[in-house]
């Protein structure tokens, strides 16, 4: 909802000529030009870019991304290669040689074995490794799924389970752990399985929507038209209906697949004009999430590319080509030039492009990759918002976002985890976990999410020039029309509450992609603790906003409200600051109510500040001393009483609460200054009675002497 405005704004900005791009790719790219290369494969399970030659496989780690990464080289035997994937422990290399056989190479020992189809009637469509507890590799065949466990001793595959069904083609992404099997005449009937570390979940069979061009013709759905998309741990599927020129989206739940909405795709012409390179970040567009628009602002991307290109000043001048393939989650493989680019989000640009501060904060709070940067930005934005005296309700929303995000990070533990990782590599300020997992959120995160495009390994090579351009046209179109479209659809996308029927019954257990990723990724969180709010937002704001502190108090109050709702504890210093501000503007009545109603929670710091601020106002001072007593700071309370001349009350209180640390001389001196010999005698007597050996102290003799003098003088008088 709230993302809507900003996304439209952002994408408009993105299309404008002078606007800042939200996404950039950093020069230099990873060059992966290998002589004799037979194409590129992307192994999304291990995030490896693979390039086989006739007898070798070059593999580059893409996470963490480094342009200087050196390839690992493994030897394989010669032969045709349909697809290639490393096992998840990276010990085995599996190469699909034909539609009947897959060859396995042990990387250390060099041992090989070959797995073949048993029956002649079936052929292998593809395979993938899995972290499912019962099996290691899944082979997708025209007759169904075969689940195998790798037997280390026998160096062979042992069949664990077979799922029989007719399969025309399939799509799989490691991120979602979801395999969708297409069947039927039109290939629009789907079976789905999620094979995660938790186990295997079979999804209900469902049909995708296809329009008919004419009465008799039945279009066939192609695998290129179906994408599995993971948005913050939620799994969606996007389907392009080429006949109706509509993009459908579906959300997966354990027990249901719910169509979320459809968006029209427009003619190819416009796309040609804009010439934007994109294969598949479609979901982004349709979601209308702020995160998403970063991907959609492709003209910007291009701009930055060309800038870099001119900088680089070599034969890489034309970087963008039809050979661009987008990989999970943030890579671009330029097949033609044999380069791998990493896509970066320009957080500054994104946050600068929108005036809808709460949404920007919400977006930034979801950053995991550049958590520290996002956090710094959040702090700066919040501070600026206050200094600019934005309307209170807007700041209130911002506070809600920050506090909610913090509360969530406490629950998931990511806040502390983040702190830990931040501390260990002290030289690296921007910690990005090796997992680079965007989607470590538990399924309950809702709303504005980042969408990540999925591409299965087997496909990189097959993405033809034509196809890529097709897609680019479609997506570009829809991006430009996005603002209009979103308004009609985002309700369905965004809030689970809006939908009816099956949806609401299913919301209980949405299919969660991130189960296993959670363990993998070591992440930091941009969440801001109340302590940091105080140190980096309120305290600096207070320093800069001299005079008329009323506005700042309103903001702090909103923060208290948010914190109270989320049951987050507020830094006592912020309470102290509140007392100072209210006292400075002489809003004593309000300050009194703040303290009495415990909006300002009692603490020693607050009590002392109240005493300090109470120099001008007796009532406030009183509140301070009451608070000292309330929080059982007996010694401070007794001292205060003595200071104020209530030494008898102080004695009584000290006796009751066993405060023994205060020197008797303090009381005696106070009694002496009151010039009341009876009181002085009483105090002397008190100490003589309750402190053993007090008679022999110098205090006793001094004041005994004084007492005698007082008495004799009064007699004389």
């Amino acid at each position: 909802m709230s993302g809507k405005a900003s996304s439209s704004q952002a994408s408009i900005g993105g299309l404008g000529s002078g606007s800042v791009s939200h996404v950039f790719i950093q020069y230099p790219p990873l060059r992966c030009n290998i002589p004799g290369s037979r194409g590129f494969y992307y192994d999304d399970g291990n995030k490896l870019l693979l390039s086989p030659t006739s007898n070798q496989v070059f593999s580059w780690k893409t996470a963490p991304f480094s342009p200087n990464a050196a390839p690992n080289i493994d030897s394989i035997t010669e032969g045709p290669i349909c697809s290639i994937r490393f096992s998840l422990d990276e010990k085995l290399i599996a190469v699909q040689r034909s539609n009947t056989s897959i060859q396995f190479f042990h990387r250390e020992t060099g041992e090989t074995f070959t797995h073949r189809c048993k029956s002649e009637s079936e052929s292998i469509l593809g395979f993938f490794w899995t972290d499912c507890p019962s099996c290691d590799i899944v082979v997708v065949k025209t007759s169904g799924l075969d689940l195998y466990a790798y037997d280390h001793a026998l160096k062979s595959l042992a069949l664990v389970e077979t799922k029989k069904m007719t399969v025309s083609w399939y799509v799989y992404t490691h991120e979602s752990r979801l395999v969708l099997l297409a069947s039927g005449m039109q290939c629009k009937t789907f079976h789905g399985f999620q094979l995660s570390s938790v186990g295997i979940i079979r999804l209900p069979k469902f049909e995708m929507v296809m329009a008919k061009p004419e009465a008799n013709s039945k279009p066939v759905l192609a695998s290129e038209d179906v994408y599995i998309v993971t948005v913050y741990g939620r799994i969606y599927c996007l389907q392009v209906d080429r006949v109706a020129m509509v993009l459908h989206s579906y959300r997966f739940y354990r027990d249901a697949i719910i169509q979320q909405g459809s968006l029209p795709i427009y003619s190819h012409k416009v796309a040609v004009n804009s010439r934007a390179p994109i294969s598949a970040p479609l979901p982004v567009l349709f979601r209308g999430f702020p995160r998403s628009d970063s991907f959609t602002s492709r003209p910007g991307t291009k701009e930055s590319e060309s800038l870099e290109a001119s900088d680089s000043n070599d034969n890489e001048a034309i970087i963008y080509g039809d050979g661009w393939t987008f990989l999970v989650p943030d890579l671009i493989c330029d097949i033609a030039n044999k380069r791998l680019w990493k896509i970066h989000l320009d957080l500054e640009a994104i946050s600068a492009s929108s005036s809808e501060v709460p949404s920007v904060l919400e977006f930034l709070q979801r950053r995991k990759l550049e958590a520290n940067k996002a956090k710094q930005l959040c702090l700066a934005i919040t501070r600026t918002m206050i200094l600019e005296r934005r309307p209170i309700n807007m700041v209130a929303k911002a506070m809600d976002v920050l506090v909610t995000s913090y509360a969530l990070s406490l629950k998931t533990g990511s806040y502390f985890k983040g702190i830990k990782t931040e501390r260990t590599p002290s030289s690296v300020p921007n910690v990005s976990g090796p997992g680079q997992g965007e989607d470590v959120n538990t399924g309950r995160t809702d709303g504005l999410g980042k969408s990540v495009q999925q591409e299965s390994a087997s496909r990189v090579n097959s993405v033809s020039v034509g196809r890529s351009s097709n897609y680019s046209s479609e997506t570009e179109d829809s991006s430009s029309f996005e603002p209009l479209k979103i308004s009609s659809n985002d309700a369905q996308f965004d809030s689970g509450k809006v939908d009816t029927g099956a949806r609401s019954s299913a919301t209980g257990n949405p299919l969660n992609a991130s189960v296993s990723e959670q363990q993998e990724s070591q992440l930091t969180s941009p969440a801001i603790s109340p302590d940091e709010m105080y140190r980096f937002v309120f305290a600096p704001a207070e320093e800069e906003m001299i005079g008329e502190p009323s506005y700042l108090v309103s903001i702090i109050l909103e923060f208290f409200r948010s914190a109270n709702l989320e049951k987050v504890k507020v830094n006592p210093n912020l309470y102290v600051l509140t007392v100072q501000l209210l006292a400075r503007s002489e809003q004593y009545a309000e300050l009194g109510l703040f303290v009495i109603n415990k909006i300002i929670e009692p603490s020693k710091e607050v009590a002392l500040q109240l005493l300090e601020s109470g120099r001008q106002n007796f009532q406030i001072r009183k509140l301070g001393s009451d608070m000292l007593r309330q929080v059982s700071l007996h010694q401070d309370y007794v001292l205060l009483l003595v200071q104020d001349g209530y030494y008898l009350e102080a004695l009584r209180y000290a006796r009751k609460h066993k405060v023994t640390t205060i020197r008797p001389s303090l009381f005696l001196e106070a009694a002496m200054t009151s010039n009341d010999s009876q009181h002085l005698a009483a105090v002397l007597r008190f100490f003589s009675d309750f402190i053993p050996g007090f008679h022999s102290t110098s205090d006793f003799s001094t004041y005994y002497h004084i007492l005698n003098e007082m008495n004799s003088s009064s007699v004389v008088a």
Partner: protein
Amino acid sequence: MLEYSFSKPNSSRSPSLVTEDLRSFISKIYTVYSTNSASFMGLSSIGTASDGMQLCIFDLRRGQHEGQELDKILYFFPADLPFSTQLSVIGLSEGLITFTRIFSPEAACEVIEAERHSHVFYEAEPDIWMVMIVEKSKDSEAIWRIDALREVLKEIHSLFVMFHGSIRALLEREPGGGLTRAHLYPFIMDYLRDFLVGKKLQLPSFRDCLMERRSVQMLTVGREAAIEVQTLVRILESSAGNLPCFSLILFQDLLVSTTLSPEDTINLYKYAVLRLTPLALSSGAKSWSYLRKGNSSSHVSIGSTLLSTGSVSEQFYGSHDASPAGDNRYHVTRPLQHDKWFKGKDGFLITDIWGGDIGSLNVTTPTVWLHQTEERMYLCAYQYKSLTIILLIPLSSILNGDQGVSILKQQLLENASLKILKVEEKLSKGWGGENAYHVSGYRYLLVDGNRDISRASPPTKVTTLSKESLLALNRLREEVDAEKSRAKWDNPGREKDLEVCIRAKNNAWAVARITGGKELYMVLEKANETLLYASDAVEKFSNRYCSGTFSLD
């Protein structure tokens, strides 16, 4: 009556014992004098006409020459008393004040206890005195606490100042005094009408000893609700733009929030409870209809015979009837007039007291004078269900008068309605009802003198106490009052801790504990024989409801 009396050893006498004795000595002399002179000067006969109460206001700086004595009288109740009698009452008071000032220039006479009357003095402004004379009838109900009566005088004066400014200022505006009298008379009459029970004025008696007049009763709210309330306060005050303004929020008859100084809070709170809260409105609104538009002769209520003036003094005090007939010499607003406030359709409370026509909804916005800022403010009152919100905006900051105010009201509705709804809902949820602050087994009064806040057992519960117990507590409170005022003179600015337990004839305990400016009064009827038991009960109460304030031992 007192069977047992107990007081802390440390509440010992202070060095100024001598002056103390002198003062009481003088007061004794004057008791004798006043008794004699009162009967001599015919004071004793007054009571019959006015049900035993006289109330006068006079200015010592006026009428100092022979033949001009009437000048000093600013107000006298009952007004139909012959001037000679009025003058004799005032003359006596004046004499006492002048005499006692010789010994105590800072604070002259406070009270005179004569055989049949009590004279309660209050110097409202320098040289402007209010004196209340109550008759000690044989009626056993006529037992007062002097300080409670003085509180009535204080209340009259501070409410008057809130609406009309100080008496001295009025006198300076029109040295003849007519303006002042024309303001004072209807004001106090309207005020006193609240004390009418049947045809009798019922002044605060011993039955009201578990009450503190000049204090505010507050609603206890949880933290979450408190934050919501304060957010609302900020929204309210920000809807006036950058103008400095104040607000007061009440739930039912209890204060929820204030941004005013304690003094102004007490006055506005009192006014709200008297005339603005849903409870106060409900009595008036029923009888009101548009048919009565324009015909605002309000002089019809029950006490009219008692509170109306005879024709003799009508000229002297100016017309007490503020009917817009136009034959008044002065245009006098009567803010305490009954049944004059109504809730408009937009939720704002309206009245034609300040002029205008209620039928056409074209009314002049009420104004009050704030003690704290010494500035005149527009008073806008808004009501939603049990929530009453009062917003005060300086006159000086709104240029185009009523029109500006109505724009402001519009803004207020736009900005705050949602929040008001939310706050009302939250407070209603947390509201424990009429008896929310009842503590079973206890009848108590808790006064926080530092903040002018009090809380007491609900009146319906207090009435279950026997007369004996109430009298005992009344007596105890008088003692404490005396002790407090003594301490104030001996040691200004110092608080005195005090603890007194007395046992009444009916074996009830009356307890008073004072510490750090906070006071707790309590009647325990079902307490056991021992003092220890009573003390324990107080301790428990203190720990449970006063965060241990009163449990020092």
